[in-house]
């Protein structure tokens, strides 16, 4: 069963609702979780939720612009992940923790 067969008749609003639900899960995860890696994963989830919206709109409009932007987003997210993980690695070496609550010394 191809995706077209499964979802061919689904209206765009379904994709957008799914995207919003995914985005909300990501936001809540960023706000409530304390482990920096999990927070990071939640950020990725938010990015992918947005990607889903892009793809859904592109398909509904019958143009490729959305798909192109998704590739940009994924490239930037990959770069960001490399930098972010490097920071976390370094942080763990210095402070021996990746708990967000315990890394507040840079305030003020």
């Amino acid at each position, binding site marked *: 069963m191809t995706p077209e067969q499964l979802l061919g008749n689904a209206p765009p609003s379904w994709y957008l609702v799914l995207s919003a639900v995914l985005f909300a899960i990501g*936001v809540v995860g*960023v*706000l*409530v979780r304390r482990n920096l890696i999990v*927070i990071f994963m939640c950020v990725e989830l938010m990015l992918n939720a947005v990607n889903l919206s892009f793809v859904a709109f592109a398909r509904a409009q019958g143009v490729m612009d959305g798909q192109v932007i998704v590739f940009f987003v994924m490239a930037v997210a990959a770069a960001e992940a490399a930098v972010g993980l490097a920071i976390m690695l370094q942080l763990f070496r210095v402070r021996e923790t990746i708990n967000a*609550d315990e890394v*507040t010394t840079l305030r003020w």
Partner: protein
Amino acid sequence: MVTATPTELLRWIVVLPFLGALWNLFLGRRLKGSVTLVGPGVLLGAFLVGVKAILDLHALGHDAALRDAVFTWIPASEFTAEAALWLDPLSAIMVMVITGIGFLIHVYSVGYMHDDADVARFFTYLNLFVTAMLILVLADNLLLLFVGWEGVGLCSYLLIGFWYDKEENAIAGKKAFIVNRVGDAGFLLGLFLLVQTVGTVDISSLPQHVDALRTATIGGVPVALAIGLLMFVGATGKSAQIPLYVWLPDAMAGPTPVSALIHAATMVTAGVYLIARMHVLYALAPAALEVVAIIGAFTALLAALIAITQTDIKKVLAYSTVSQLGYMFLGLGVGLPGAALFHVVTHAFFKGLLFLGAGSVIHGMGGEQDMRKMGGLRHHMPLTCLTMLAGTLAISGVPPLSGFFSKDEIIWGAVAGPHAQPWLGVIGYLVAFLTALYMGRLFCMTFLGTLRADEHTKHHLHESPAVMTLPLVVLALLSVGGGFIPIPAIVELVTGHPHGHAHAPLWALVLASGLAFGGLGLAYALYVVAPDAPVRLAANLGALYRLSLDKFRIDELYDRLIVRPLFAAAGFLASTIDQGLIDGAVNGSGSLVSEASRLVRRLQTGNVQHYAFSFLVGVVLLLGWMLR
């Protein structure tokens, strides 16, 4: 009209003692031997320059003055003040007294302060004191006079508190300083008023402004009267008159030569000199002169009454000075500046002598000042005793010694002079009797009878060295013969002859000398013939005696009326206004900011998630507003 001849001689009279002060200040500690040479030496130099200047002045004839314009001090467009010195017969007399008597006191100090560790500092102050006093008397304008006026105030503070490690002495120095500041405020106000009225501070130009001074009024009061009274307030401070006399007896805390210098040659005569100098102004304000006369007479009486019961030899002399200064102001007040200056000079002779003699006694007794522990010293200190006798007789007014002439001139002036106030003359005669009584008491308790000191002091007892007794002898000769110097005639060259100048009739002279002998005789009877009589007398006069012994409790009165309310007000200002209101406002604004920041600080957790949450809330609100 006085013609002023320019000269460059006068400045050296002032500069020499000042150079001495500088020498002693900077080199005295290193070149210890030089202090005792330089200190008195510069005074001798100033004296000789003064003599030369006076000879020059004399050669110029009557109505002449020497003027040394040193530099222009304040060249404002409308108002100028020069630093200029002015020598006329009036200031000439003062220069002779200050440098002459001052020199003798300096010589005496060499002996008296021989064992003191800080001789250099002592002579620095002493020379500076004389410098300031010379500026005061030689000043051509009132502004420069004020410089000297403040200078002697400062030096008296430094010298009275010379032994500053004793708390009592430091307090006495402060008292002299503060009481004098009160008087100086009056002097300054008078000075400002004068500048406002006539636009000049030159003393010699005052006669040109007589019309302006006569007609001008301020708040309904004639300006001349206001200036006269304000300047007299200054004079009461410097010259220790009611109500500002309280510092002088306490000033005894300083070394004895300082007391002699303050009481004889400098400082206290400044007030008398000021009023004599401003005679043009006071001639326009007879009411001010009347105040001067009344204050003078009552000061003379009050101080004489206190002097009778004091047991500290220097305190007796201190109150005696206050009393004699009262005579001088009485003389000024009844319009006889010549007689007042005459008494200044003779008083400088015998009071200088008496203080130095008392110093010699204290020196010999090893620091003892209580007359109750003296007695019979004539055997141990014959030269001191003899010179003190001359001083005692002179101040008591025994003819023909110097005090007799000057005092008689004043008292008879009060009875029959140009502005006679006979009832003040009566007070004058009463004080003359009291003077003889307390001076006789001092002499009898110190030199006659039997020695009441302890064994240690008796063993130590000795006559003072020649460097101390020689000035005593010179001063004794001056005290005996000083009455024949025609001071009133010299002063009247400046102030003009008083109208209705009356020579005392024979009965007045007999009365005056009778009072002197009576007082001395009574003292001899009470303190030598029947030594237990004063004790019984004191017991019978209980309350009166204690009142006099406690100096009429004037100090306590001032303490209640002025000092304590001032302290209370200052305490209120310090605790309530300053610490409460002002500090409260300052600290309050600080802690307000601090408290506010404590609230806002909660937002700055450093926790990214908190920031993200506020970011989210913002986005939601923004979206809600946009989609509304």
